[in-house]
């Protein structure tokens, strides 16, 4: 198992480097010139040839004329920077946000905690609903409840999540007035203690979490259900029943553990979709999260910020895939033996 994890880790590092190189070169396609930007304020005080010389000097100083791969290695922190130190992503320097006039790492802190907060809630909720629901539907296949669930889940994955959000907003915020339309805190609120702050935040993110859960319900429930039906049609289930085992034991111990394998593989895709889905949710509900920040960064062409968030998304996906692989190994002994 240890060797297997090590192998996966090495693989992840390689993929991360490739993805970040890709992103960095993409980022370099944008026509921008930091040196000119830097010199722009002094331009009026200089003669043209003087300005040109200063511009050339600055370009060399900033290392803008170096090949792409060198600039990339500098950015990632594997190559000596212009001042001779290593100062890149690996050293914790993600760049400077032009939009917020702050280091990216400072800008990201609050939104990141919000996003993770929301995603943890919706992940727990989704898994807590989809798995029992899928199992129940598989066991009661063809019954009325099952058919109804099939229809609802079909709606869930056919309708784009922002439309679901609009409908839920209409129902919960306007017709019933239960939840606020947008934001992460009551405007102008002062809190007596942190518990109050927490409940207020919870109150504001409830609707987004519900929408996210509803949106991710469809695919997962169907997946659990079909995996479970596959498992239930196996011969060992008949054997287990013939042995006179209790139905509960047959379902949860014999069938479910085997159905878990395909379910786990699908969780990765689903996990990623939750994170990219949060771009839409956070925008729709004006939540101060990573997705919203990403959207703002892209709209304002603040590419250092965007690049950092994109790195965050890549890392999330890579770690997600690592976790899936490890849990796959835990669930299925054959994987451990093979690799």
């Amino acid at each position, binding site marked *: 198992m240890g060797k297997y994890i090590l192998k996966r880790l090495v693989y992840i590092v390689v*993929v991360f480097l490739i993805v970040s190189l890709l992103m960095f070169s993409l980022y370099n*396609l944008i*026509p921008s010139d930091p040196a000119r930007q830097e010199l722009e304020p002094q331009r009026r005080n200089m003669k043209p040839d003087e300005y040109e010389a200063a511009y050339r000097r600055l370009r060399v100083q900033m290392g803008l004329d170096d090949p792409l791969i060198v600039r990339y290695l500098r950015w990632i922190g594997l190559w000596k920077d212009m001042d001779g130190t290593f100062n890149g992503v690996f050293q914790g320097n993600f760049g400077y946000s032009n939009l917020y006039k702050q280091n990216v790492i400072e800008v990201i802190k609050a939104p990141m905690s919000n996003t993770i907060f929301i995603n943890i809630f919706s992940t727990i909720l989704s898994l807590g609903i989809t798995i029992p629901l899928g199992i129940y539907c598989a066991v009661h296949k063809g019954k009325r409840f099952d058919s109804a669930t099939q229809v609802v889940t*079909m709606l869930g994955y056919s309708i784009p999540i922002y439309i679901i959000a*609009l409908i839920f*907003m209409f129902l919960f915020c306007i017709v019933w007035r239960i939840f606020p339309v947008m934001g992460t805190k009551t405007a102008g609120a002062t809190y007596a203690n942190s518990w109050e702050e927490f409940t207020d935040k919870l109150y504001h993110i409830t609707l987004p979490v519900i929408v996210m859960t509803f949106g991710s319900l469809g695919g997962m429930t169907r997946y659990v259900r079909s995996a479970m039906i596959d498992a239930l049609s196996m011969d060992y289930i008949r054997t287990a029943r013939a042995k006179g085992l209790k139905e509960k034991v047959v379902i949860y111990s014999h069938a479910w553990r085997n159905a878990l394998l395909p379910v786990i593989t699908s969780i990765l895709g689903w996990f990623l979709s939750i994170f990219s889905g949060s771009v839409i949710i956070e925008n729709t509900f004006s939540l101060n999260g990573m997705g919203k920040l990403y959207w703002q960064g*892209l709209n304002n062409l603040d590419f250092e910020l965007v690049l950092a968030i994109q790195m965050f*998304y890549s890392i999330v996906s890579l770690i997600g895939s690592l976790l899936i692989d490890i849990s796959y190994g835990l669930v299925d002994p054959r994987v451990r033996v093979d690799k």
Partner: protein
Amino acid sequence: MSNTPKKGFFLTRWFKRTFLGHDQEVRDIMKEEQVQTPFRTMARAFFSKRTVRIGLTGFILIFLFVLIGPNYWVLDLSEQDSTLINLPPSSDFMAVPQEMNGNIVDIAAGRTYGIGVATDGKIHAWGYTRITDKVDIANIPKEVQEADIVQLAAGEDHAVALSSDGQIYVWGNTRLQQAKFSSDMTKAMKAAAKGEKSENWDIIQLEASNQFSAALSSDGTLYLWGNTNMADIKIRSQYQGNVAKVALTSNEYICLLKDGTVAYAGYKDKGSPFAAIPAGLEGKTVVDVAATSGSMAALTSDGEVYVWGSSTSGEKKVPAFSQKVTAIYGGRAHYDALLEDETVVSWGNNKYHQTDVPAGLSGIQKIYTGNFQNYAVDAGGQLHTWGLSGFLLGTDNLGRDLLTRIVNGGRVTMTVGAISVIIATLLGVVLGGLAGYFGGKADLLIMRIAEIVGGLPFIPFAMILSAVIGTRLDPTQRMYLIMVVLGVLSWVPTCRLVRAQILAQREMEYVTAAKAMGIREGQIVFKHILPNVISLLLVSMTLDFATCMLTESTLSYLGFGIPLPTPTWGNLLTGANNSVVIQQYWWQWVFPATIFGICTICINMIGDGLRDAVDPKSQER
């Protein structure tokens, strides 16, 4: 299933059993077991499901709608009209109440509504009369209801009425000085209320336009009032007391003087295209003037019509008249001319059918024209209407017809979805085929790439691609870019599917046979194996089509897909996420969301049915 054995009439059964023996019946049952080609089995399994039939019908209907629809609802990208913004679904802009018919005193056509006064003195309002949340033209003030109204005028957001005792009433939106009379007018009205007759307060004409109004007295005195910030509502002293008729554009006015000439009587005449009265009018006697929002027209005594102004929507293309013109009337962007034989000719902008005069209209005595509506009264007092009656699905925040945008947006969304699916499938099949058949290093390389691409969070990555590359592209190129981005990012599942299928098929006997016959490897992959995979490919294409449409719309919704003003089902919903739109302008998101939701649900139903039909094992699921 249709091939269950028929029981038949009991007598025939008895006959068979008695004379032919039981054997015959048994054989009959065996005969029903027909041999079917796999394709027919699939098709039968496919069409026998109710969900599939519903999905297929729904999808075909929507598909035909967006395919054929754009020919009828032609999209004009530059279209916008400030007077038509945020209108709800309606079709009653010209629904004159029945009791008005035959006893009309006056009608005024406003923005999206009409007001009229009948001979019994009752004032009616119809159409979409709401101006804002609080202001509604249909809330006719009590004193107006009680007064004996003889003339009406309807502006953009206010209505004006004149009573027989010389009082002028204004209601509707009055926050921008629409009801601020000059001191002369208040004095005159006070005097008139006491029953004093005065020379310069005998109002013969009442007009209203964009936040300003005009009243003309029989002695030639013109009164103008309203929002002075927008409109040129002062009159030069040399014209005052000399005016015979007035016509209002949206911010200017034109006067017909008593000596039969036309004059721009305002102060903002420098360089204004409205002040440039055509040279052809010189020396001719003008008998009538009219104005649209951006042009002015004059009718000479010999029946010629001259049009000038800043408008570009076709009012200046005056048609050749078969008869002498006796009067002209102006709408928002069109003119009506009443001819000597009492028929009507109309020209100008025809987007809302304002100039589609009903066939066989004759005996017309009077026309009331305003904005996009026309009301004509014939000799029998019968009312005829034509023009804009409403928007079936409402309008958006720029006054564009939502139905047109939904139909055209559907075409864009479906095209983008289809092309990106084709790109994704081609990439997936080629790469998956190579990886599956050749294995080894090619397989390793391709599958690693697939893993990286498949591992990228889709929406953020598509956003950055669109933002980085899209900045230098024009809208059409950007549309192609979105297709390519979607295709390039979504080939992975197809590739995996094809690879897995080919790995399984490669071991089959027919491949060995093909190899033994010396057929080239490439031929074996694409000509022998692929046809066996095609049904599964079809399933994944169908489901991908829905996914690609969803992704495109999501990107457009976030503002990184197809840019406005090109409509797609996604960007129609941009900006819908605030409580004002959700609640008050519900039609702006309900209709696009509904048709899009139904469309993707139908496609997914078809896809699911197809998968069940192709893979019989899954039917048990």
